[in-house]
């Protein structure tokens, strides 16, 4: 774009810059503050006397002898067995992503290549399903799951998350497959491949950028879920997010709030790393839906 197009009057540029700086502070400060505070004792992080205690760590110094303490982390991970929740989260997330993507690529490919009216209607139904609040679906499962003894197990939560994920996965992969030229797999079929062979040998090798982007969002949905995992999993199968919520019930005890703070920071770290490495894919994924309408 030429300079004339992008040039702005100084007043506009100033306002824009101030706004962006303000936004960056608003977006980042809560995280910086909480990570910093997670290494303090409760008396500093929630300081009645003076908020600067959180910076200087006066109480932390007095209670532990050093300005930083890992007591919150030790309490959460060892004493309250947060590691168990972390393992459960890992299992749920990995399987949800793999199964979602397997189902989603097959379905999304079919939707992208079928010109019939019912493909359009399936996409519309998927859109309506996408809008359903998850908790309304949960209230439909809960009673049957109790009756059939399916309640509380990790596989149950995984398959439910896969299903809830499907509408979104189908939409996204469908629009990615539309971008892969039809001639590619059709010429393979002219050469004698079946539809599935064409998919397997021609489409699969070129679909990975789309699949990775979609996978990131499936990951986020499974990782961030609270409604399904909080209601469908038993105590010992709890994942991280409901576990953190359960810490809150016991926050009245001195020090336990810091367990929750430490657990919150621990659970945010993987997301932080995810953005660090996949920022480009996340941005392109968010906009893929928009461009396709």
């Amino acid at each position, binding site marked *: 774009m*030429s300079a004339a*197009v*992008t040039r*702005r009057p100084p007043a506009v540029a100033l306002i824009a810059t101030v*706004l*962006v700086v303000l*936004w*960056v502070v608003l*977006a980042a400060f*809560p*995280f910086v503050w*909480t990570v910093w*505070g997670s290494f303090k004792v409760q008396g500093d*992080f*929630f300081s009645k006397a003076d*908020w600067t205690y959180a910076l200087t760590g006066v109480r932390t110094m007095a209670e532990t002898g050093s300005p930083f303490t890992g007591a919150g982390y030790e309490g959460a991970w060892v004493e309250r067995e947060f590691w168990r929740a972390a393992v459960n989260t890992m299992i749920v997330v990995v399987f949800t992503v793999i199964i979602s993507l397997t*189902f989603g690529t*097959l379905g999304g490919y*079919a939707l992208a290549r*079928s*010109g*019939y009216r019912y*493909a359009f209607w399936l996409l*519309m139904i*998927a*859109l309506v399903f*996408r*809008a*359903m*609040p998850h*908790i*309304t*679906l*949960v*209230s*439909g499962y809960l*009673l049957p799951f109790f009756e059939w003894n399916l309640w509380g197990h990790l596989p149950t939560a995984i398959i*439910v998350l896969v*299903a*809830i994920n*499907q509408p979104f996965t189908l939409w996204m992969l469908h629009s990615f497959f539309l971008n892969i030229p039809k001639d590619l797999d059709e010429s393979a079929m002219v050469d004698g491949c079946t*539809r599935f062979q064409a998919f397997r040998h021609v489409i699969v090798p070129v679909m990975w950028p789309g699949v990775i982007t979609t996978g990131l969002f499936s990951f986020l949905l499974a*990782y961030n879920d*609270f*409604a399904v995992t*909080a*209601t469908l999993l038993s105590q010992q199968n709890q994942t991280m997010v409901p576990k*953190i919520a359960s810490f*809150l019930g016991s926050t009245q005890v001195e020090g336990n709030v810091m367990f*929750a*703070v430490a657990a*919150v920071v621990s*659970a945010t770290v993987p*997301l932080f790393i995810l*953005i660090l490495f996949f920022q480009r894919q*996340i*941005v392109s994924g968010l*906009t893929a*839906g*928009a461009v396709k309408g």
Partner: protein
Amino acid sequence: MPHRTFFWFILPSLVAMALFIAFPLVSVVAQSLFVEHEQVLIESEVCDPFTGCRKELTVDAVATAQLREAQPLGRFNGLGTYTDLNHLAFAEVAEAWRTSEGLVDFGGQLMNLPFYKALAFTLTYTFVVTPLVIVLGLAIALGVNGLPKLFKGPTIFVSLLPMIVTPLIGSLILFWMIDARGIIGSSLQELTGDPNLSLKASPALTWLTLIVYGVWHSAPFGFIVFYAGLQTVPSETLEAAIVDGASRWERIRYVVIPHMAPLVVFVTLIQLMDNFRVFEPIVGFSAAANATSLSYFIYADLTDINARFGSAAATSVLTVIGVAILLAPVLVRTWRDFNRKRA
């Protein structure tokens, strides 16, 4: 693609969605017509030498358990659950309508009914957060677009944080900061000079807090989509407009805005869907006393010690109807577009 091949490709997705999205919707409708069994009571006569004999009611735990075992759905209640005090509350609404003095008073009385209270918050949240996300997202996108290239990447990285973070965790982080002993809470007390100011105490402040959280959480989504849109504004058209002597405002009005309009529709659609199911912030901010949403209302019924499946199911059905009304304009539009394309 032949029907048969299409069918096999789509089958796994379809089965998953049918079993875990369509079936629960049916199951919810069925459950909403039933309520839990009442406890089986036994009447027995208890006699003691001082007060004489009297009748006493005791709960027959075994019989109650057997009854629940035999008919897990509960007893048939028809549409009774929908019209009871905790849902549409027809009787109470009619009563309030007759006795209230003016609309404000009527609204005030409605807010004492749990379902209408949840509905009011859900709608307020949805229709306040959505436009704010669009305005703020657009403003940030325009701001970032003018930044030197070096700063764009880090700004986007930071901006993604509030959106990517688990909603429950994001709301907890803010909740701790606005605590009377947290940094924002105590700063606000200093600023207002009111040492007892608490953002958690009054309903109005709680609503405000939740809405601020909602905008903080969703603005990055609007920002990213609009920012990507700004990258694809046709530069030839812009340059042509300059040659034709269009002012800055005219260029925005006639080139940029038409280009961005579909993106605004997209963000609005996604935001309406997502904000309507607002749930985690209410758990995170422990705000249930002052603000409940439809989703939270269902969750509270489900996780209660005496899980009220019938009540939760009735609220779910009403929520799904709400979603349908919300989506209706979009679906009608898509349907027309689709037919026009075919015609």
